[in-house]
Structures are given as structure tokens and as C-alpha cells.
């Protein structure tokens, strides 16, 4: 019985069904299924499948985002029943696009894949002032600050975030990743970023690796 309900929940996450996921999560809780099992074997495994499907281009961005929303709706039901220390936590990430830049699709893909892979994400949007990246990281006790820029003329905003951290003495507290259209490894090295990836799926792997390596 438990397996059936978990399987239905997992499938609902894969289908991006924002109504069915919280309903099935609640149903599983009522049936006495362990909240950790609901999280790990239902919601997380479903999200994992969606991430893999997106990477293989079997599904597209809309399906990825709908699954992300469904997953979040499920988490709202389950998390109150789980002790904080029991929640599997891969890391906390602040994502945003630099000041002067309003492009966000790349950032949104990265965010959706982070969520699908079990990261906690705070998306602070586009055209973000430098200090807001740092303030948000402080607020959620982030592991990573991920700074996106799509235009050549806005790349400098990535450097500004790192310079700001250097000058306030907070650089060692956070892993800084950069990404977006004209960003590349040389640029990341030049400005002193800790991580860069060409694609969102690769960026998720880099994020996980950097956290694991404890580069602080």
C-alpha cells in the first residue's frame, strides 16, 4: 500500500501536477507513511526523474518548472511533519541576475534543477543590486551565491558581487558561482569566482561538488 502511494506521488511530481502532489502527500501522511519516505522516495525521486528527462531533452522548460511547483506544493505539506535535522539538505543557494540585466531564463532553469536535486533555493530575481545578493545569503545562511549575467555590458556585475564580499570581509563565507551567456571559465577565474558551468545541469553538479569539497 505504502509503495503504491509513494509511486503515485512520484508520478504526480513527474507529471507536474500541482493539485495531486499535495493531495497525495497528505493522503500518504494520513495512511501512516513516514514523512521521510514521502520526501525521499516520493517527491525527491520524482524530481530526480524530471531533472534527468530535461537533461535528455525528453521534456522542456515548462514541464521542468511545473514539476518544480508541484514539488514545492508537496513539500509544504510534508515538511511541517519532519524534524529539521532529518531533512536531507544538499545546500542553500541564492540565485539572481545582476543589476542592469533583466534576463532570467537561464537562472530559472538552474533554479528549477537545483530544487529538483534537493537544494534549498532563494531566487532574488533580476536587476539585483550587489548588496542584495550578500544580504540574502546572510539571511538564509547560504552556501552558494550564484550570479547570472547575459549581456557583455552586465558581466561586470558578477565581479562587483565578489569585490563586495572581499571588501566586507565576507568572501570566505560563501561559494560564488557565475553563469550566463557571455560568462566563461577564463572570466570566472579572472574575477575570482569559485565555480562556473556552461549549462544549468552542469552547474548543479558543480554546485554539489563545491559544497562537498567545502570550499569556504
Amino acid at each position, binding site marked *: 500500500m505504502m509503495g503504491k502511494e509513494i509511486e503515485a506521488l512520484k508520478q504526480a511530481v513527474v507529471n507536474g501536477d500541482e493539485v495531486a502532489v499535495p493531495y497525495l502527500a497528505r493522503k500518504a501522511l494520513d495512511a501512516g507513511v513516514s514523512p521521510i519516505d514521502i520526501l525521499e522516495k516520493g517527491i525527491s525521486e520524482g524530481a530526480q526523474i524530471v531533472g534527468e528527462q530535461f537533461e535528455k531533452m525528453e521534456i522542456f522548460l515548462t514541464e521542468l518548472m511545473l514539476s518544480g511547483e508541484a514539488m514545492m506544493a508537496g513539500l509544504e505539506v510534508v515538511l511541517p511533519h519532519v524534524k529539521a535535522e532529518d531533512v536531507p539538505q544538499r545546500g542553500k543557494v541564492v540565485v539572481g541576475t545582476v543589476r542592469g540585466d533583466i534576463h532570467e531564463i537561464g537562472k530559472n532553469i538552474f533554479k528549477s534543477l537545483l530544487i529538483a536535486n534537493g537544494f534549498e533555493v532563494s531566487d532574488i530575481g533580476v536587476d539585483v543590486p550587489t548588496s542584495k545578493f550578500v544580504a540574502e545569503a546572510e539571511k538564509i545562511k547560504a552556501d552558494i551565491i550564484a550570479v547570472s549575467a547575459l549581456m557583455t*555590458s552586465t558581466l561586470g556585475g558578477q565581479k562587483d558581487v565578489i569585490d563586495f564580499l572581499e571588501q566586507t570581509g565576507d568572501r570566505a563565507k560563501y561559494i560564488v558561482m557565475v553563469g550566463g551567456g557571455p560568462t566563461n571559465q577564463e572570466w570566472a577565474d579572472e574575477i575570482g569566482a569559485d565555480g562556473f558551468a556552461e*549549462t544549468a545541469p552542469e552547474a548543479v553538479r558543480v554546485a554539489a561538488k563545491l559544497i562537498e569539497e567545502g570550499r569556504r
Partner: protein
Amino acid sequence: MIPIIEITNRALDGKPILEKDYDIRVFSPRVKELTKEHGIVYDSETLVPSDDGLADSIFKAAIDLICDVGVYCKDTERIIAFDEKEVRTEIKTSFDHAVLGEGLEQRTLLPRKPESEELPWIFAGAGGVTVSDESIFMRLVESYARMIPIANAITTPCLLSVDGATIRAKSPLEIEGSIRTVKLGREALRRAGRPGLPIMNAIGTAESAIALASGLHPDFGLRKTDGYMIAELAELKTDLDLLNRAALLQSLNVPIAGIYGPIYGGFAGGAEGTAVTSTAFHIQGILTYGASWTLCFPIHIKYTSSSSPELIWLASAYAQAVSRNTKVPALYYNYTAAGPCTEMVLQEFAAEFIAAVSSGASIETGGVAKGKYFDYLTPIEPMFASEVAYAAAGLKRSDADEIVKKIVPNFVDKVPDPPRGKRFQDCCDPMTGKPSEECFEIYNRVKSEVADLGMEFLY
């Protein structure tokens, strides 16, 4: 043309909706429905389709799309709505040409049709890719003008920095960078002996409206016969800053381009949905900005390039849809996966431009190595791309399809992990901009291979 004030009023008073809901609950499902309703299907066996019915179905679906979901204004979080009668009227009464360039270089950019023998407009150069210093900028632009005699217009690089300081948007660095882009570009064209060539990505370095406005001052060398681009945001969006540009440029009476980069694998879905969306973007440019030409640069969400088979089909299907059904000239721009001084980059250009030009588009030579790496530019790539585009004029779509399908297998497996190639300073003479012998050898080899497939080069 719909007055910009009317567009603005609709942006201010239209139906409110959150952007995310527009993306995934309005736009995306409607695209999916329309591709089914109109029977639009991507055929991996035919990269350059010859089916006029398919092109017209894509166009009808695009009209339905823009009438059903409108254009989203990000700042006001409202939908700019259009009805079908208005859309069809605007398409029928749109601009049908743009006069660009001065003196001996003045030409008229005209619409083309699939299989047309009319030569494509050659908008050649850097495609706005970034260079690290002004001397490389100068050498490249000068070389484009000298080495590409069939170029009708030049696309300059963007500057990364000003006097060593990395440019920041909306700062004096951006304004200075924008002014320098114009002045350097104009001076490089003068040195090449082609001072009348238009710069069609006027002020490539300007991201903000204030930088655009600064660079526009006649003291800095821009002319009314240069090209002025206004971005349309993915997918089917705009914002007040972009509408501000339209307000300014329409009042200046200059040729405006609506430019857009639909994302394969994004909210539009696969090849079919992205073809419909690209076509709707062309119409959006006419409706919201009063565009007299448009530029489409689709991109693969995973590879961030445009030479995958699905996108080659998309380039062809889109070009046929807009060139058969509107009279606004449509240009196509590509992102190669590979970088300079490689065979692959030239093969990618050949496949994409043979598909696009035989399908009715003109071209802007695109971003090399995904437009991602500073200084990964030489004059060879746009030179080759321009020559291929000329050779593709008059080609039957069925013949283009056969040729493209013979080129694609040479590189398709390398798209996920392409060779980055060489930087300008590693394969060109820094004093003259002349590419190395190695670059020319690769160019001659690939050109010969493409000629052997049946392409007749002008020279």
C-alpha cells in the same frame, strides 16, 4: 503602424498576470495546442522542407498565438493584446524595405521568398561578440570590410572594457563604451575604404536605453541609414525600456529591427513550437515596434548553439513562414558551437545558411563559439558564411535539403562538446588583422568540399 503610445497604453491597461503564469500557464500550453491544431510536425529526415502548406500553417498558428496570448510587458505585468483583424491589417500595411548605408554603399534591404534568386542581404561581421581591447575591434571591423566585398552592412563586436575598466550597465562606463563602439566602427570602415557601409547593430555595446540614447548623438557618427535593433524578450515579451527605444527611434525615423532569440527546449517546447514562436516574434516586431526588418537567432537550451538538426529545420520552416506571408525582410543569425580556425565552424555556417537563404531569409553572420568567449573571432568565418549565403540564392529547397543533410553529419556529434578553436590574437596578424595560413587552408578545404556538393560560389 500602431502608434507607440497606443502600445504603451495597452501595456499599462492590459490584462494583469504574473510573468510565471504567462510563461507556463498561458503561452506554453497554447503553443503546444496550436502546433497540434495546425498539424505542424518536425521531420528529422527533411531539414529543409519544401512544403508550402507547412510554412503557411506555421504562419497561421503564429497569428493565432499572438492573438490568443498577446505580448507580455514585464514591467507592468500586463498583456498587450491584439485582435486578428488588426494583426492582419498591420502585416498587410507594414514596411517592406529599409534603405541602409550612404553614398556608394547605399542599398535597399528587401524581402526575399523561398528559392528566390534575389541575393540575400549580407550583414557580416562579429555578430556582437565581445573583444577584450579596442585594437582587436579595429582590426576585425577593418578586415570585415576589406575581406567581404559582398557585405551590405557590418556587425561590430562589443567592448568588454573601457581603459581597462570592465563595463557596467547603466554606468558612465557603458555610455563611454557605446560611444567608442560607434566611433571606432566608423573609423575602421573609413580605413577600409568603405566609409558608407552601414553599421546594422548600431551601438552593440549599449544595453541600457540611456547608453543607446547617448551613442545616438550625430557627433559620434551614427547615421539614420544605420540599423537600429530593439530586442523582443523570450518568449513574446517586451518591457518599458524597450518600448522607450521604439518611441525614440520611431521619432528619429530610422529603420528599426525587432530582434529575438526563441529558445528551443524553453517555453515554446520543441522544434514545432519554437518555429511558431519565432514566426510570432516576427509579427510582434511589426506590431509593437513598427519594425522594417527583423532578425531571428534561435538557440538550443542545452547546447546554446543553433546548428543541431532541429534548429536547422526550424530556421528553414520559420524563414519560409515569414517570407511567404509577410513583406518585412527577415534576417537569420546563428550561433555556432565551434570556434574560429576549425572546420566545424565553417560546416555549421554552411548548413544553417544554406537552409535559411534557400528558405527566403537574408543573413547576419552569427556568434562564433556560441558568442561566449572573448576574442574568439576572425574575419574568415563571416567571409565564408557570406559567400555560402550568396551561393544559396536560387537554390531549390529540395536541393538545399540534400546538401544540408550531407554537411550536418560532419559535425553533429561534436555539438555537445565542440572545439573552441583559436583567439584572434592566436591566428591573425595583430597589425593587419590578416588570418594565418592555417585559417586559409581550413577555409579553402571546407569551401571546396561544399562546392563539391553542388554549391556554386560567386568567387
